[in-house]
């Protein structure tokens, strides 16, 4: 057991999986000699060599596409995209090919690859360097979309993603790469994909969040608890396939719910959760469902980043509305 940042925990997952399985390869811009712009792949090239830790040319479409080719031909590539906002050239390959290979080959081929990318706000940048476009991938059948929320689950989920037989897009909340440490066991640990976890049990209201938004959501829960309200907090962990049963069970119990995400509001994950709760918990609702999200704007520059990103205050406010 060591106390690790999420950055180090992800590095541990990569190193251990490369050690365990010779068919795992890491590739991407500056991931080798340079150790990656966020240093997630630091030291891997020294341990596993240039053949398995590949610095690629600046070409996202080919990074993802070559990864797909490697995967259908028997390897397990882990492609790093430097920022999730740079993945748009790669989306063509993910959407057009990675997501469809199993179906196209009627189950004879699969694409056991992982595309990792830092996503989200909190680094005082804007646009491509801060946005949160998980629904691009979640909308596509054939892809899995995973977002961890801390060192320990990031490590365990990345291991599961690498071992998964299908393509997984793995978004790492860059705001918390080094924000805090957690005990992470040395021995291997996995978490099932497609499973949410209850982080805090409570009987008054359900708060659902994922990624970097879990922290302000827990903060909001503490504030509410201070006022005698008992919130339950759910960490989604996998956006798609979504564990709607865990959320619905909680909402059937509590009757009130707030969804939190930093992605833009319209057509966001929150909208999908609303739809599923409508199907699975409608008769248990005691108040309109609430969501606290980013706004329907381009993610703005640092002077206004704080105003864009949901914080505990906005979450508490929404919870109080739902509790009225």
């Amino acid at each position, binding site marked *: 057991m060591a106390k690790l940042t999420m950055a180090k925990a992800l590095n541990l997952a990569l190193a251990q999986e490369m050690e365990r399985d010779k068919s795992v390869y890491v590739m991407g811009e500056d991931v080798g000699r340079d150790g990656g712009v966020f240093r997630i792949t630091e030291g891997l090239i020294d341990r596993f060599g240039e053949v398995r830790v590949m610095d690629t040319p600046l070409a996202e479409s080919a990074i993802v596409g070559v990864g797909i080719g490697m995967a259908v031909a028997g390897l397990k590539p882990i492609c790093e995209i430097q920022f999730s906002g740079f993945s748009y050239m790669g989306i063509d390959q993910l959407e057009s090919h990675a997501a469809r290979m199993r179906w196209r080959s009627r189950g004879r081929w699969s694409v056991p690859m992982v595309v990792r990318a830092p996503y989200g706000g909190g680094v005082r940048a804007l646009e491509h360097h801060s946005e949160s476009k998980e629904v691009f991938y979640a909308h596509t059948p054939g892809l899995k979309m995973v977002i961890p929320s801390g060192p320990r689950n990031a490590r365990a989920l990345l291991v599961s993603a690498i071992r998964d037989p299908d393509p997984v897009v793995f978004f790492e909340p860059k705001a918390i790469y080094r924000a805090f440490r957690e005990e992470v066991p040395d021995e291997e640990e996995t978490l099932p994909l497609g499973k949410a976890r209850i982080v805090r049990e409570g009987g008054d209201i359900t708060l659902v969040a994922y990624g970097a938004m879990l922290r302000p959501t827990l903060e909001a829960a503490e504030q509410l608890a201070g006022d005698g309200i008992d919130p339950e907090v759910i960490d989604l962990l996998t956006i798609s396939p979504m564990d709607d049963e865990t959320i619905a069970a909680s909402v059937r119990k509590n009757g009130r719910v707030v969804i939190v995400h930093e992605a833009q509001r319209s057509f966001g994950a929150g909208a999908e959760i609303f739809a599923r709760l409508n199907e699975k918990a409608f008769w248990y609702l005691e108040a309109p469902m609430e969501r606290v999200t980013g706004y*329907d*704007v381009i993610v703005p*520059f640092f002077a206004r980043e704080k105003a864009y990103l949901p914080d505990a205050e906005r979450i508490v406010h929404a919870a109080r509305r739902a509790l009225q």
Partner: protein
Amino acid sequence: MNAADKKRLLREMLYARRFEERCYEAYVERKIGGFLHLYPGQEACVHGVMEAAKPGHDYVITGYRDHVHAIQCGADPKKVMAELYGKETGSSKGRGGSMHIFDVEHRFMGGYALVGGPFPLAAGIGKAIKLQGGDEISICFLGDAANNQGSFHESLNMAAVWELPVLFVCENNLYGIGTRIERSTAVQEQYKRACGYGIEAARVDGQDIETVYEAALKAVDYVRSGKGPYFLELSTYRYRGHSMSDAGAYRTKEEQQEWIKRDPINLFKERLIEAGELSEEDFQSLDKEIIEQIDRDVIPFAEESPEPKLEELEKYVLAENDPWVKGGAQ
């Protein structure tokens, strides 16, 4: 180039150097957020090319290392600095920051954070010029690593086949972030890749502003006369890290020292002194005057300007009053 032009150019390069150094300081003081990519070492490239072009008339587009490009197109350095500070008075109204400077009045069509993004836009601007019969040209400044992006190849081919008035300038500084060119790029002389599309191309020393200027004159003439695109490769070097978060372990001190020996500003200054067109004292007082001017006009303007209004977060997403904007917001 006459003596007065040379002196002005030297001043402009020195201004760019000092401007970037002040950006560095402001970033360290956390007055500038996000990412910051600085230009020192490469000054002769944009200054030489823009001297041969018509700033404010010709369209210019580039990547994220864009402050000096904007200024050389005519953007007010005060507004560029205010943009870096995220202020309403900035050239992109404080919403873009370092990587997204825009100055439409001077036809500076933007800095872009996505590497490779500007290639097709430059070709499209060239297409519009051609269809509308203008005498402007479209100039696209990008780095060496950008040429590995698919958009480079798609755009060069299209520009060639449609004979578009586009000047592609490749500032080849040997690195894309921490990866050296031979580790990422099969053909290292970038102009050869343009030759593959039948595009006129040349490669020259990007540290010598007079060489850049001569080569750019030829290139600009070629493009403006309607013969089609041109690709100019300038071999150069950046002194600072790729961005401010760069530890620089991927290159040696010796290599950096070698390039600093051929510093574009020093090279030009020494030449002017040798020709008797400048004295060391002239240079020192020029430098002093530039630093004073930046400290007196540029920095206080950026510091004292207001931030964008919170109520205007939704502005500029779509045309004013579009129902989508209000409908989606909380």
